[in-house]
């Protein structure tokens, strides 16, 4: 009961934040009726998906302060579990997705145990490596389609068992539901014992240890939570794209985007990952298609993208939300 109350209680946020959340939610709810084109719909779906990824990353990367750059492997695990179980055994999404999450949890515990012997940069590099290794395995593994990837058999629209739809509107509400589930979970997480302990570890690991916190175990737990989150998103990606390969769901690029968006928005804050995704997903898409596609300036979008990240991180390491909080503290 206490857990549920904590999860649904947003009352400790400021009035402005709560109003913004309500307006944002209304906008989302009505979004499919705003008559936007399919390109915009895709961007918004991507935004919600990356917000979900970012929230997951935020547990270990934000609250725990560990530079985690290997989340793509869990996107892959989630996506491949859903895809393969459907192709091989015709197992519906609602069974295969939780199984994917369980596999991600198990795998993350196994990987996390040795991984968290490392700290700082070494940890960051190691997370990249584990993700690359898994990607390489999938690229060469014939049974799971190797580099060619797998196509999901297409079902008649609408199929709520396998979550396959012709219209983006369905996918939109689907990912929106997952997004809100993630949001509510994070609202609980930030007030949980683990949330507090992780923030202490981030601030001062030695002091955390002296307060009876098993730092390594806490990090492993947070890492697994993050992995589970991301695996849910991966499962969604499989039924949304209906085609996955190791390059689209396990790439280093994806890992870095997940971490960057959360960091740019503001790590260790409730809204940071959402703000980060709201900036970077559209920027990524619009700049990519406009500059790259229409103007023939291929690669310029990446320069703008990178410059923006550098400017924000130089000005305020705690990201866009950090800037907002800075102003709020000044006003107080």
């Amino acid at each position, binding site marked *: 009961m206490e857990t549920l109350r*904590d999860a649904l209680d947003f009352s400790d946020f400021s009035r402005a934040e709560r109003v913004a959340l309500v307006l944002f939610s209304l906008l989302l709810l009505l979004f499919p009726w705003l008559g936007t084109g399919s390109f915009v719909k895709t961007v918004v779906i991507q935004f919600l998906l990356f917000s979900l990824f970012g929230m997951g990353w935020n547990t270990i990367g934000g609250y725990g302060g560990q530079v985690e750059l290997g989340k793509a492997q869990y996107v892959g695990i989630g996506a491949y579990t859903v895809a393969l179980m459907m192709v091989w055994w015709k197992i519906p999404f609602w069974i295969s997705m939780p199984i994917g999450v369980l596999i991600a949890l198990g795998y993350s515990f196994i990987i996390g145990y040795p991984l968290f012997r490392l700290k700082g940069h070494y940890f960051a590099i190691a997370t990249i490596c584990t993700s690359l290794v898994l990607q390489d395995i999938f690229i060469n593994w014939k049974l799971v389609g190797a580099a060619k990837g797998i196509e999901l058999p297409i079902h008649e629209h609408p199929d709520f068992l396998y979550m396959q739809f012709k219209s983006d509107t369905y996918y939109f509400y689907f990912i929106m539901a997952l997004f809100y589930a993630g949001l509510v979970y994070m609202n609980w997480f930030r007030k949980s*014992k683990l949330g507090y302990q992780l923030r202490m570890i981030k*601030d001062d690991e030695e002091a*955390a240890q*002296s307060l*009876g*916190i*098993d730092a390594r175990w806490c990090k492993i737990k947070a890492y697994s939570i993050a992995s589970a989150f991301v695996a849910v998103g991966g499962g969604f990606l499989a039924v949304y794209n209906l085609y996955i390969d190791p390059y689209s769901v396990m790439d280093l690029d994806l890992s870095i985007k997940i971490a960057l968006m959360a960091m740019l928005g503001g790590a*260790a804050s409730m809204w940071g990952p959402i703000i980060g995704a709201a900036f970077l997903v559209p920027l990524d898409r619009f700049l990519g298609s406009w500059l790259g596609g229409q103007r023939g300036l291929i690669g310029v979008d990446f320069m703008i993208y990178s410059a923006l990240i550098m400017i924000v991180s130089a000005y305020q390491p705690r990201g866009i939300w950090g800037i907002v909080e800075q102003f709020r503290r000044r006003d107080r």
Partner: protein
Amino acid sequence: MIDLIKDFGGVIANNHISFEIDQGEIIGLIGPNGAGKTTLFNCVVGYHKPDSGKVIFKGKEITGLKPFMTNREGIGRTFQIMKVTAGMTVLENVMVGAFCRTEHRAVAVREAMEILNFLGLEELKGFHLNELPIASQKKVGLARALATKPELLMLDEVASGLNPKETEDMVALLKRIHQEKKITLFLIEHVMEVVMPISQRVIVLDSGEKIAEGLPKEIVKNERVIKAYLGEKYAKGF
């Protein structure tokens, strides 16, 4: 009963040091720089593993246990130099300590507030560590260690960086903690004004060896201690 035996071999920092602390005592550990005080301290709380010898706490051997485990056994500690970060407020810092013994946030908040009230820090609860003067930072360190409900509290140079007035405050505070919370205190200290008035027993280290142990009165008259650490002036003044 707290029964602490230490016996190192091979470590130059601490050479065959053994002593006991009884429950409810206040023990001071003094010695010149490099005497091995902090090493000894770290061996007890688990940051270092002693090469040989045993640490026994309440009849249970805790040698080589990790710091978070020794804390769960009932040993709290403070740090000489606290990392001052902007990540958490004072209340949140103390809550982390309280979370050591509970799963519920409401309980953690209540216990943290009790301790903040006890130490007179309730007005600072919304501040971040980096916004506080050093004396208050040290008290927060004390508060969060107390929140873990230790039976033995080990204080690493709790008065370093404090001015005489603040030092006096701190001594009074330590006395109150000892009396009202019934916690055994073990102080590593450079500042004689802290050790001498409150310690019931003082242990002196020099070059990794225990050179004296006894009542503060006796220690200041001890030849070896005067030579190694206190200097003639202090002994006369006492």
